């Protein structure tokens, strides 16, 4: 085994660096320099809460805002008639690693003004919390659940914040974080055992299939779940 390999194992043992105050991605520009009308208006109205902006990929405009005032800013972007971002296309997250902030990304579109805007909120690793925007856009519901599931960001005020992609009782962490090992934290045997002891009805029952509020039927005991040895563990 070469020096190179050994140093790679050392880096793994040491884990991620404690905290890197620098932000991820390219440098930000002042809001006033933007030629996107919404970003200029945001800078005038919210001042310091707008952390910067940067055009990317030609005409895609990105603006960074402070997470403490995110709900206020986003609801203004939706309700102000000159902005009217009435469609929330995507909510996602980015982990830049090395202790840098995790960013929550909102991709919005205004069908009235035919404009797109991307808003990013950097969250420090010790305070992964932000206000939910489900009261503004219903489409953010499952998207925020996905960010919670894969990045561990808690959305305050979300009506149903639970895992959406990973198993509900998954306790190995949040897989898209940079400090998450590629093959998970448990051995394959333990992962297989846990996977097979899941209760399938929890995923494919009435609640998940869109009939929320209805009592799940008492299902007849079927081969493969109830009564199996260790099946409910």
């Amino acid at each position, binding site marked *: 085994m070469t020096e190179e390999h050994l140093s790679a194992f050392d880096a793994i043992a040491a884990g991620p660096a404690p905290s890197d105050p620098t932000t991820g991605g390219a440098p930000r520009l002042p809001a006033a320099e933007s030629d996107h009308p919404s970003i200029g208006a945001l800078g005038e109205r919210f001042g310091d809460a707008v952390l910067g902006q940067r055009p990317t990929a030609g005409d895609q405009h990105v603006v960074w805002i402070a997470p403490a005032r995110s709900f206020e800013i986003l609801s203004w972007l939706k309700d102000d008639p000159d902005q009217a971002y009435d469609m929330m296309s995507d909510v996602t997250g980015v982990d830049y690693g090395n202790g840098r902030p995790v960013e929550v990304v909102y991709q919005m579109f205004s069908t009235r003004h035919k404009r797109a805007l991307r808003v990013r909120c950097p969250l420090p690793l010790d305070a992964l919390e932000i206000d939910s925007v489900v009261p503004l856009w219903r489409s953010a519901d499952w998207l925020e659940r996905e960010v919670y599931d894969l990045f561990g960001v808690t959305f305050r005020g979300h009506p149903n914040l639970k895992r959406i992609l990973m198993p509900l009782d998954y306790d190995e962490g949040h897989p898209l974080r940079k400090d998450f090992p*590629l093959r998970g934290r448990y051995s*394959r045997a333990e992962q297989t055992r846990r996977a097979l002891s899941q209760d399938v009805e929890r995923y494919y029952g009435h609640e998940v299939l869109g009939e929320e509020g209805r009592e799940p039927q008492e299902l007849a005991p079927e081969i493969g779940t109830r009564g199996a040895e260790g099946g409910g563990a």
Partner: protein
Amino acid sequence: MGLKDKLPGVGPVPTSGGIFGDGSPTFLTSKIDAIINWGRLNSLWPMPFGTACCAIEMMASAASNYDLARFGMERMSFSPRQADVLICAGRVPYKLAPVLRRIWDQMPQPKWCVSMGACASSGGVFDVYSMVQGIDTIVPVDVYIPGCPPRPEGLIYGLMMIQEKIRQESLSRHFEHRAEDPLRVAQPRANEAEISGLTGPFGNSTRQERLSTGQVPSRKAPEGESGRKLIHD
């Protein structure tokens, strides 16, 4: 070409006025094994469990150009209760593992399993936290079809191997052919050491921290009773 030509072991007993016309025998002699196997192997109903691109090839196999119906697989059985062959086509994530296991448990004996493609057989390129590393850790597999995805010819060849396997079965030894503990529903098929052996790290990833890193044992199956060799092993 009548029934008498297709049945193996039918001896010609020339008499007059036979059941198949003039000069044909008035009775048939054959082994009950031959009759039953002949019936089984020419009326296999597949249970399609298609999760990815392999399923596209499976559909192509069932369509008119390749025409799986020639082999007696006239009907894809979308209920496991009426299926004989489970065709697992595509990658299986851990969240789907209990579903696959339950479908297998719901299929009546006799039943066979085809693992179609690299992902179902070994996890393929998805050596990650979310993916089952080969469905043989969950259900017993009779035939593995390599390919990414296999062509329809590959699937047809695999199913013909299943037919060949059925042709060699015997009623008097059916416990050996399908030795599966009926009490082990919803349980991993392999034990912990076997799963670790099947899914051990292959060295294509640098971040392999785990809480429980078992040793990688050799691929030796546990010894059964005196010389009793299971077909699945």
